[in-house]
């Protein structure tokens, strides 16, 4: 991870660490914090705890997002302090989920914009001039548009890949495929490195092809406290406890000292957390299908 972040994430970059609740790569975010990156434009539908931490330490110049909360548990307080004028300033560029998905879809297709039927009656376009309109060349209808998002680097966490980064994901797919194809550089982080024959045995599960991948990092538990379907559960207690930690900036600093700056890498983080085995997934293995002819 250290080498992948050092090589592919630069000060001033537009960075996407995607994953909708599922497969959020905290390991990559922590390494970016440790390496002291600055002036990043952080983009994600749901900034989640990892971007809150990155905002807290000053990695971010700007946040591009659509829902900034701690799902089911409360607020992202470092984010709120920044926006409510009680912390270091942070530029915002705000969409809805569909808008962010559309921006990445345009980016993945290398089109300059994407069209939606959306935003009429909302105040979002009033505060975000990037939300515009286009006239349908057939019906004359006026539709909403958002501009393509083409990040400098995207991190995708996947359950497994081969050494070339052909990555397979099951469970929630989020916008990882779109984000990866939209990006100049792609880092794939996996729970498990498998032989290419495993990938080739079930090609319909491949979400990211190795040809667009710049680095492959093997990092078990790399998504904790997020989760990896079939590997480990979401650490809901951590998310609930975060409300208290992040509300108090001193407590947040202590957390970061202990679990981010105070560990060398993900392996050390897992040791320091202790007891993560309690989150190990139960067995619910589906049957395979026949690819023969």
């Amino acid at each position, binding site marked *: 991870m250290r080498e992948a972040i050092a090589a592919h994430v630069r000060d001033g970059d537009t960075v996407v660490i995607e994953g909708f609740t599922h497969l959020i790569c905290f390991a990559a975010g922590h390494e970016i914090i440790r390496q002291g990156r600055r002036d990043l434009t952080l983009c994600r539908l749901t900034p989640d705890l990892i971007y809150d931490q990155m905002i807290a330490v000053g990695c971010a110049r700007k946040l591009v997002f659509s829902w900034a909360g701690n799902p089911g548990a409360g607020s992202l307080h470092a984010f709120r302090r920044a926006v409510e004028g009680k912390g270091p300033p942070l530029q915002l560029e705000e969409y809805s*989920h569909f808008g962010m998905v559309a921006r990445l879809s345009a980016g993945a297709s290398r089109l300059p914009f994407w069209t939606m039927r959306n935003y009429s009656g909302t105040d979002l376009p009033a505060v975000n001039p990037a939300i515009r309109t286009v006239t349908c060349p057939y019906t004359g209808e006026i539709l909403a548009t958002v501009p393509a998002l083409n990040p400098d680097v995207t991190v995708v966490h996947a359950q497994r890949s081969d050494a070339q980064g052909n990555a397979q994901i099951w469970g929630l797919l989020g916008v990882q495929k779109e984000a990866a194809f939209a990006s100049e550089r792609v880092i794939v982080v996996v729970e498990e490195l498998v032989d290419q024959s495993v990938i080739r045995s079930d090609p319909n599960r491949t979400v990211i092809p190795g040809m667009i991948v710049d680095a492959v990092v093997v990092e078990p538990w790399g998504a904790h406290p997020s989760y990896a379907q079939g590997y480990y559960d979401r650490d809901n207690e951590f998310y609930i406890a975060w409300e208290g930690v992040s509300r108090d900036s001193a407590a947040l600093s202590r957390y970061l000292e202990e679990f981010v700056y105070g560990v060398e890498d993900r392996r050390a983080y897992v040791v320091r957390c202790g007891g993560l085995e309690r989150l190990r997934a139960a067995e619910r293995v589906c049957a395979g299908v026949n690819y023969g002819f």
Partner: protein
Amino acid sequence: MKPSYSPAEMMTVVAARELSDGEVVFVGIGLPNLACNLARETHAPELVLIYESGAVGAVPERLPVSIGDPALVTGSLMVCSMADVFQCFLQNGRIQVGLLGAAQIDRYGNINTTVVGEYIAPSVRLPGSGGAAEIAIHAGRIVVIARLDRRVFRERVDFVTSPGRRAQRHGGSIGSTRVITDKAVLESDPESGELVLAALYPGVDAAEVAAGVGWELHSLGRLAEVSSPTDQELQLLREVLDPKRLYLKR
């Protein structure tokens, strides 16, 4: 006499009864999720739950803490990308009901979940739209769950995240909005789009509802009465659906 159930329980039960069997519902987390699960356990076993995370036909074995919980995936009918959720399901018009929360809601059903105060330098920064803006625009009808409070039910909201009086859409119909509060149900007038009092909970009078609303609340000519939660509904909520009181305690 104090009722033997909490306001949160009542709101959940009333929201559940809003859902018809076989409907396709776009579900948020918290009380909306509980309401859907209650409906599935009672009168609407074929209710189809869709989450913006991509889980379709979810049958969660535990109460999901987030809309991306792994329990929504295991045993669901389909998991698709978020692009498909928003384009092929929602924008396509396949969602009959959208359930939304609200930090503020105005006379015309406009909802704010973005900021309290000015957008630039707000006094309280809320999470923002998530999928709410497009749910409000594309779902066939909208059910909002919110407690009566003049800070919530306002003449004007500080920011319109999700539009209320909704434009006529491709389907040709204007979807209704129903607001499930802790004391009554409000409903959008089909002509004006204004939220009016539609039904009262047991033991509540119209004045009590009006006191929690920041505009002059009109009401339907004939108010419906909402019955209390049944023993079965309460038992399901308390013992099966949210035994840890994760959402019902609030």
